[in-house]
């Protein structure tokens, strides 16, 4: 069952980390072979939350399957829905109203912020600093409030329908988002004071879990993980979709490839997201929020693939249609899956404590990996 490691037996032992372990953030199971504290080999064992979403979607209609994908990467539920909607719209060749596009992007960026804040809090918690978690959730709660008001739910928003969004934004939306931005900007310095500049944190992350650019490409890493290694792979920038074409923003790149670089990418990405929201929040175009679509959607025969950037990296939605009301085959290329495959490479030779920091900066969401 386990990847057998060729090691001398003396002093080596096999340690199960997970499925129930505080730092795996879910039900990831890692077989690690350790000698003392040094990790000799790591073998991820996933599937503890494999919910057969791909099989299930084959029997759901194009309107319905979008909602089950929120449960995949629940921290970027909105982006998952967005990806599915984009694919369906591509097949149907529906023009999405501009207003819906902008709303989608604002919500996406808010989701990204919420996801990164949760990541920041839980990374600090994994490394032993418990208070940042609470400060992160203070700001995150503001976002979930906004979500709740406009989308109707806090986490799995189900706000997107093929052709637009389910409802228009709440009248309070813009005011609340601006309030959030003010609050966030006043607190981001605190984040750096507490964690980024902390000497212990820097020692725990600098030079740990180095992933070179070549390896990042070969392992198919995406998102902040790959951008920390200097691989430019922000889908928003290089293959712009939705309204990202018209928005000014920077792609965040760091070149060190260690845990600290990945950390910094995410921290700076948060500020960039705020920048995007600031551009859009006062310029939401008037108009419809939803395009007219038929009651029963039928995609033409063919194959449709959408790439988009979630909080974790590149999500691919691959739909094979046979012309019916349900997809023939659907495949989600999840960002966490490929990032996880690089984990063994990254932690080999490090300590058990480093495993936590590397896993924390990979920002794995296990249901996203298992689907």
């Amino acid at each position: 069952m386990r990847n057998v490691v060729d090691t001398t037996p003396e002093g080596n032992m096999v340690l199960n980390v997970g499925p129930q372990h505080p730092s795996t953030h879910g039900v990831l199971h890692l077989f690690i072979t350790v000698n003392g504290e040094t990790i000799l080999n790591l073998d991820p064992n996933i599937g503890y939350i494999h919910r057969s979403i791909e099989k299930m979607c084959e029997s759901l209609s194009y309107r319905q399957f979008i909602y089950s994908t929120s449960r995949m990467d629940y921290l970027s539920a909105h982006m998952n829905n967005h990806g599915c909607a984009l694919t369906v719209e591509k097949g149907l060749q529906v023009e999405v109203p501009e207003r819906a596009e902008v709303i989608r992007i604002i919500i996406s960026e808010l989701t990204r912020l919420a996801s990164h804040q949760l990541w920041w809090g839980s990374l600090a918690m994994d490394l032993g600093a418990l208070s940042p978690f609470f400060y992160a959730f203070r700001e995150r709660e503001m976002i979930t409030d906004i979500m709740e008001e406009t989308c109707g739910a806090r986490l799995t928003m189900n706000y997107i329908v093929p052709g637009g969004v389910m409802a228009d934004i709440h009248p309070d939306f813009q005011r609340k988002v601006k309030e959030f931005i003010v609050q966030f900007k006043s607190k981001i310095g605190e984040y750096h004071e507490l964690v980024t500049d902390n000497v212990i944190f820097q020692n725990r992350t600098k030079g740990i879990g180095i992933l070179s650019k070549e390896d990042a490409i070969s392992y198919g890493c995406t998102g902040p993980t790959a951008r920390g290694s200097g691989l430019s792979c922000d889908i928003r920038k290089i293959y712009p979709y939705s309204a990202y074409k018209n928005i000014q923003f920077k792609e965040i790149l760091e070149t060190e490839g260690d845990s600290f670089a990945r950390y910094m990418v995410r921290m700076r990405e948060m500020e960039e997201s705020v920048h995007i929201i600031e551009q859009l929040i006062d310029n939401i175009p008037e108009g419809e929020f939803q395009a007219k679509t038929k009651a029963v959607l039928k995609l033409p025969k063919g194959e449709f693939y959408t790439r988009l950037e979630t909080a974790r990296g590149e999500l691919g939605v691959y739909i094979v249609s046979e012309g019916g009301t349900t997809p023939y085959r659907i495949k989600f290329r999840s960002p966490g899956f490929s990032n996880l495959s690089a984990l063994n490479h990254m932690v080999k030779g490090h300590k058990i404590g480093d495993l936590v920091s590397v896993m924390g900066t990979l920002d794995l969401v296990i249901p996203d990996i298992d689907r």
Partner: protein
Amino acid sequence: MFSIENILNSFHEWLSSMLNQNMVMLLEMTLIAFFAITLFATLGLVLVYLERKVSAFIQIRKGPNRVGPFGIFQTTADTLKLIVKESFMPNSVDKFLYQLAPFIVMITAMLLLAPLPFARGVQIWNINIGVFYVTAVSSLSVIGILMAGWASNNKYSLLGAMRSGAQIVSYELSAGMAILSIIVLTGSLNLQDIIASQENGWWIFKGHIPAIVAFVIYIIAVTAETNRAPFDLAEAESELTGGFHTEYAGMRFALFFLAEYINIFIVCAIGATLFFGGWMPFHIGNWEAFNHVMDFIPSSIWFFGKTFFLIILIMWFRWTFPRLRVDQLLNLEWKYLLPISMLNLLVMTLIAIKGWHF
């Protein structure tokens, strides 16, 4: 003036006048045991509650406030629950050592109470090598932890115990050096003498910068010795799930938990005694009037006040800093704390001999 010392003395004389010496001895021993148990239980409850409240305020939340007014019975409920929870022992453990370990840890913590001067003249055993006794006995607790980790037959426990072993013994050194620098100043190992020498000011103020450096090193070292964050590698929840007490449940776990908090109290009490004058009120040189006003505050309040100040300081560390990695932890000791404390000791000796301190 109200003084516990007088009450205790008159009580002792009253007993001696009524009973023979052996009986007095026996009775007093029972009373001490009773006192120690009460102190233990109370301190455990208060410290855990304090920790939860401190963490709550740092983390912008309210903390326990449902069970009793302001939640003060929260820890009572926890303790009761732990007592009535199944004290379960896994099959695969080394049964003897597994059961012995919590006792060792408890006995160590209890023994450390002996030389603590709780107030003017209140001390269980006025041992003339008090400081030495504390450093010697406190290193015994590592045996309990190693025993627990080994006996549990669990890899996480073993790793936790090994880490804690390497950590506690290492930090013993710099803690010892920091203590030595005060001993150089006082020239006595007796805790009462050390307190008496701070009659006209506490060492942390009188001893210039070396005393402050020694204090900082002492606080860092004892934080590590008591396995507190940021040095809680022996437990390290996010790495080792529970560390050395992973396999302990119910009452046995509660004993470890309790001993940990008592140890914090003891090291803070020693720290307060060495650097802040123990029960000695805040005196400034020869400002007679001021010193006299300060004397009106009972000495036990001074002692507990200072101790709790240090405890809150240590809790403040815990809720602020990330955890160190095991090799960084040892680096910190061997590359930074130990050389610095050696140098500090030399400077302190120079100050002491030249009489530059106040």
